[in-house]
């Protein structure tokens, strides 16, 4: 019974491969099915290669401002092909790392498109034919893809999704980005730094709409200062693609229609779960608008079938998928009789979010407005980068850190940051939040000097009127 497993994971993205490793660690016989690249979108076409691109953009940006650091650099230019090549090689290195991890944990990899055929049964199809697998438990971790605009299907030429935007053959001269979530803003930031003329259109009233309002406002000012055009409360009504470029009909905030010309457009209006043609309907697995319904441990309504990551309710983030993978793997091991595992449901209020534009944005928990709407008596504190020695030494005096507390209990409800390296800072608050900290413990924590993290301390102090450096 070579193809009989305790667990088969469908999809090898950051949810799937982590679930497979955790299950293997717990002694389960595990296989993973992948139709394209081990590591999924995150590693091959998402998080990691975009970070490589953004790093190039950041270095380029710094080089252009060399004089500010007392350095002289002439003839600075970007080699787009080399930048993309570096990004691809980073992805490839990590992709091979996943192959190694699968081997090390004795996880069988089946390359091909997987489909559930019956409870506990799957088949994997590739160019060599069809293979049947059976498993006591199945985790669906097939992820998601970019959502298309009905009137502007991506063609890879002029109309791009994130995937095309990651491997440009040429630099767009005039770029339209539709959608200002993390993906849209990151590409807008990258191309703006690389030298494109960028316009961002956001339907809602502010960019990065899931973030705190103060962060949205600060980021908009910063991006406009960098030369971006930002249209909020605006919608793209139609797009005409020709061989030389694009003409877009944009309805602005005040209802006026304008026809604008661009060389390229990136569509970043959200994602759609990959839940079609993997056999969910035949098994009666409950979905809502394509999103699979699960309990706190990832169990679907069909016994033995689990789902994690972007096919389940959001937030649609790689680290959320990985964490769900661990929870589901442990719940499965427990169901198979392991008494030493104690899976714990995840608290979604403690999942951080990061956007790697310039300046960076990071947050966890409730925004000030959402905390108030939820009925909390709120104490909020803000500390600016301008008041931090390390930020000034870095030449990055733009940004702030804001913390939101429940005035009654001292519970840390949320933290919101914008500025240099904040994506590396946020986890300090996430640890505190997960341990259920109050302001007292944060105030009593010694933060190292000189670091940006000192602002995390000051922000808490500011919430209680005790900030030292403002």
């Amino acid at each position: 019974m070579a193809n009989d497993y305790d667990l088969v994971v469908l999809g090898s993205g950051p949810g799937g491969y982590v679930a497979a490793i955790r299950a293997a660690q717990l002694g389960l016989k595990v296989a993973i099915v992948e139709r394209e690249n081990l590591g999924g979108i995150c590693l091959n076409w998402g998080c990691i290669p975009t970070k490589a691109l953004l790093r190039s953009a950041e270095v380029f940006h710094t080089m252009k401002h060399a004089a500010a650091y007392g350095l002289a650099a002439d003839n600075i230019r970007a080699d787009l092909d080399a930048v993309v090549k570096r990004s691809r090689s980073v992805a490839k290195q990590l992709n091979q790392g996943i192959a190694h991890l699968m081997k090390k944990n004795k996880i069988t990899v089946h390359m091909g498109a997987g489909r559930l055929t019956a409870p506990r049964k799957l088949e994997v199809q590739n160019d060599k034919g069809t293979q049947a697998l059976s498993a006591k438990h199945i985790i669906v971790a097939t992820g998601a893809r970019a959502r298309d605009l009905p009137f502007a299907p991506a063609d890879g030429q002029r109309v791009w999704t994130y995937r095309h935007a990651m491997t440009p053959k040429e630099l767009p001269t005039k770029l339209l980005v539709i959608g200002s979530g993390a993906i849209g803003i990151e590409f807008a930031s990258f191309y703006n730094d690389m030298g494109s003329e960028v316009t961002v259109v956001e339907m809602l009233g502010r960019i990065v709409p899931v973030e705190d309002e103060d962060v949205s406002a600060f980021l908009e000012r910063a991006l406009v200062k960098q030369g971006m055009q930002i249209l909020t409360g605006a919608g793209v009504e139609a797009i005409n693609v020709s061989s030389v470029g694009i003409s877009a009909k944009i309805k602005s905030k005040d209802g006026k229609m304008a026809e604008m010309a661009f060389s390229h457009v990136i569509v970043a209006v959200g994602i759609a779960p990959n839940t079609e043609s993997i056999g969910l309907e035949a098994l009666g697995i409950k979905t809502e608008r394509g999103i699979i319904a699960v309990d706190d441990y990832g169990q679907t309504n069909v016994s033995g079938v689990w789902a994690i990551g972007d096919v389940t309710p959001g937030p649609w983030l790689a680290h959320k998928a990985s964490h769900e993978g661990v929870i589901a793997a442990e719940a499965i091991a427990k169901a198979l009789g392991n008494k030493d595992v104690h899976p714990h449901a995840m608290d979604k209020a403690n999942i951080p979010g990061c956007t790697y534009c310039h300046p960076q944005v990071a947050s966890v928990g409730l925004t000030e407005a959402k905390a108030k709407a939820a009925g909390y008596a709120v104490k909020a504190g803000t500390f600016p980068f301008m008041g931090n020695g390390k930020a000034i030494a870095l030449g990055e005096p733009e940004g702030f850190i804001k913390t939101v507390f429940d005035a009654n209990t001292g519970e840390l409800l949320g933290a919101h940051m914008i500025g240099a390296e904040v994506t590396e800072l946020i986890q300090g608050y996430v640890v505190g939040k997960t341990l259920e900290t109050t302001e007292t413990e944060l105030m009593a924590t010694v933060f190292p000097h000189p670091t940006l993290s000192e602002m995390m301390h000051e922000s808490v102090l500011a919430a209680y009127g005790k900030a030292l450096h403002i």
Partner: protein
Amino acid sequence: MAIEIKMPALSPTMEEGTLAKWLVKVGQSVASGDILAEIETDKATMEFEAVDEGVITAISVAEGSEGVKVGTVIATLAVEGEVADPVPSAPVAASAPTLPAADSAPDTATPPPAARASSPAANGDRVIASPLAKRIAAQAGVDLRSITGTGPGGRIVKADVEAASRGAAPRLATAVPAVGASQPTVAAVAPDFGIPYESEKLNNVRKTIARRLTEAKQTIPHIYLTVDVRLDALLKLRGELNTALEADGVKLSVNDLLIKALGKALLRVPKCNVSFAGDELRKYARADVSVAVAAPSGLITPIIVDAANKGLAQISTEMKVLAEKAKSGKLQPHEYQGGTASLSNLGMFGIKQFEAVINPPQAMIMAVGAGEQRPYVVDGALAIASVMCATGSFDHRAIDGADGAQLMQAFKDLVEQPLGLVA
């Protein structure tokens, strides 16, 4: 190997006590069964015996210390022939700490026993809770020790405290006797008007009386029902019985007969042999009568178990032993905790009639005044009779007035036609 000797729970409800007196010294050898110390609980002073033999290497709670929590290490014993560890490395079976149940202790593991033993936490086992859980519990007045944690490693988290304070908070105050002994009693600070006075520190018995009686008067709606009871027949019977039993050395008091009368009356009117317990009524199948005794340290109520079905001679003998123990502070918890109703008699002081305070969680107390000769109408003519007033106090949440009246009627009948008491 060192053995930690911990403050014992001398009764099921004991939370803390006073270490009244040490009977051993550091360096002294003790054998199993030796008396180590005298411990004063909220009701009595009790002797604490050694379980293991060895040498006392340390006494960590001084004589006279009040409010010592159950589980606190009070002394350390080294097993004979071994050198005592300066820092006890692990508690031993004899004083096994209450570790969380194995299945709630996942891979993150509870702190190792060594860590517990060496941390000189003064109040017993450490409660593992998040900072936020601790703060919310303090704000809501929820005792963390009453909560089971659902976080990693059984840690108490916010959600656990919220769940506890929403619904299942242990608040059956009237049903649970002597719980919350650690709560401060009526902290009334009397103003000083310059009148000369001497302050006397309250002992635990007095504190308990204060707390329980305050609780009773504040939470129990009392109703009072008084009857006159003619005693001539009972006094006559008592004289005859005492003559008959003289050879056995038994001398019945009037009170012994009244104890039995109350026991029987409670069985005849079971609606009055109850406890009000929050959302339920406890109906007792046996009548255990608590008898108020004035002891030097304060009021205490030893119990005659199953008073209705005991012979008068047995009640009398038991009562003498219990009263003796009560006066010397030697009553064991089971001898004074419980009871389904109480009897309080102030007749010996010439008190004609009074209303007593209910002894929770009981629902009635009978207050008996002095038997005296009074002008009394017998068969339509004025005569002289021995009569006493009996007043029942009833918990009106549990007992209706008519039911209370029935109990008073039954009591009166049993006393006035006392042959029922010897049957």
